[in-house]
């Protein structure tokens, strides 16, 4: 693990900060449930692009940050994103070589799947079940994934993040 091998860690941190900002930017009421899971997309990207650097712990940390910002139970998003990072790491070899349309479909499934722990946590807290609304972010994330993927890849290549 020489310094030469790992570089550009700040780019990863910067991308997460950007994603967190996008996650709390106020949106109009009618669109609020459709907010894409920016942080989840960032977790997936770094897990498939640099599986030796980003991992379950990265996802967990990002999740804790989300819990703080969203004032949800500590661990709610952390659990979801740690799970997300784990699955992304498992399938990163396949996901990397998939063509974008196929990738998009997997992203939809992943983001829809990681809503489940959140659904249970909310259920335990006494929230009414919102099964369909949980799919909205998955749909918008799916639509925005190519764009996020390409811009994050440009960022990574430009700064030679390894």
């Amino acid at each position, binding site marked *: 693990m020489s310094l030469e091998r790992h570089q550009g860690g700040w780019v990863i941190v910067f991308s997460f900060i950007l994603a*967190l900002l996008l996650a*709390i930017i106020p949106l109009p009421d009618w669109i609020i449930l459709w907010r894409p899971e920016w942080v989840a997309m960032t977790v997936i990207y770094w897990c498939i692009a640099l599986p030796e650097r980003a991992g379950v712990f990265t996802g967990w940390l990002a999740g804790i940050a989300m819990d*703080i910002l969203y004032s*949800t139970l500590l661990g709610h998003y952390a659990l979801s994103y740690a799970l997300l990072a784990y699955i992304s790491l498992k399938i990163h070899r396949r996901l990397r070589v998939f063509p974008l349309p196929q990738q998009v479909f997997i992203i939809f499934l992943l983001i829809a799947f990681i809503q489940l722990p959140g659904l249970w946590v909310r259920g335990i807290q006494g929230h009414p079940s919102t099964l369909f609304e949980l799919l909205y972010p998955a749909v918008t994330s799916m639509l925005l994934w190519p764009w996020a993927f390409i811009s994050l890849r440009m960022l990574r290549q430009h700064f030679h993040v390894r």
Partner: protein
Amino acid sequence: MLLGFISIVLMTVDHQFNYLDNLRSMLSLGLSPLQHLVNLPIRSARDVTENLSMRRTLLMENQQLRDENLVLKVRLQRFEDLQQENQRLRLLLDSVGETENQVTIAQVMSVDLDPFSRKMRLNKGSQHHIKAGIPVFDTQGVMGQVVQADLFSSVVILITDPEHAIPVQMVRTGLHTIAVGTGSSTLSLRYLPNTADIRPGDQLITSGMGGRFPDGYPVGVVTDVQRNVGEPYTEAKARPAALLDRNRDVLLIWPEHATAAPDAVGALGTSHKNTDSSTPEEASP
């Protein structure tokens, strides 16, 4: 696996106990630059539009506010008279006199929270002596209460959040009940007997039971009553009186038994004076 386990333990502890509040405030301090980064441009954009608004509109608005102020002042005179009379009568009846509550004004930050819960973030925190449990109002009625106070900001849970319940009373009949949030923009009234005298249009006010909210503040209006003969309770829905998602400035009213904050500004019924010069209050339109 380990992190998943830690997450579950954290959630349980956070749900059941309040050991984690300090940890949360500390972590929140680290993330507060993000919140301010989002809040500032939006707020300054709003300020700029306000600065750019035409002189004529400003003059008109000024005139309107002046008129309104006059009307309110006249009403206040009557109110003060009534209050004194009330105090005298209470003394005659040997009951506890009403004390004036301390209020402080905070602004809602332009930052979104969890879309499935009904919460908002205020720009004042424990630095301004805000603590969890302090009720929050707007000019129309009860909005909610503070659930978490960080150093520079605090989180308010609205009365429409499914985790929130508030003891209320009907103005017309004096009937006590509990208004629970539904997660949408309505309240649901629980545990009403089938024989309860309740109909759409009934005003709801805080009953002061539980000691969290001061009594007598408007909570909402009953909109819909459904009586099912087969069910043990009548179901009723209410619309909150406060403009829950259209506010920029909110009032925090300190409960009487709590130790009043040294620089909590003004008192209810008297003119409001801001002692904190570092955060000048925006004049509400």
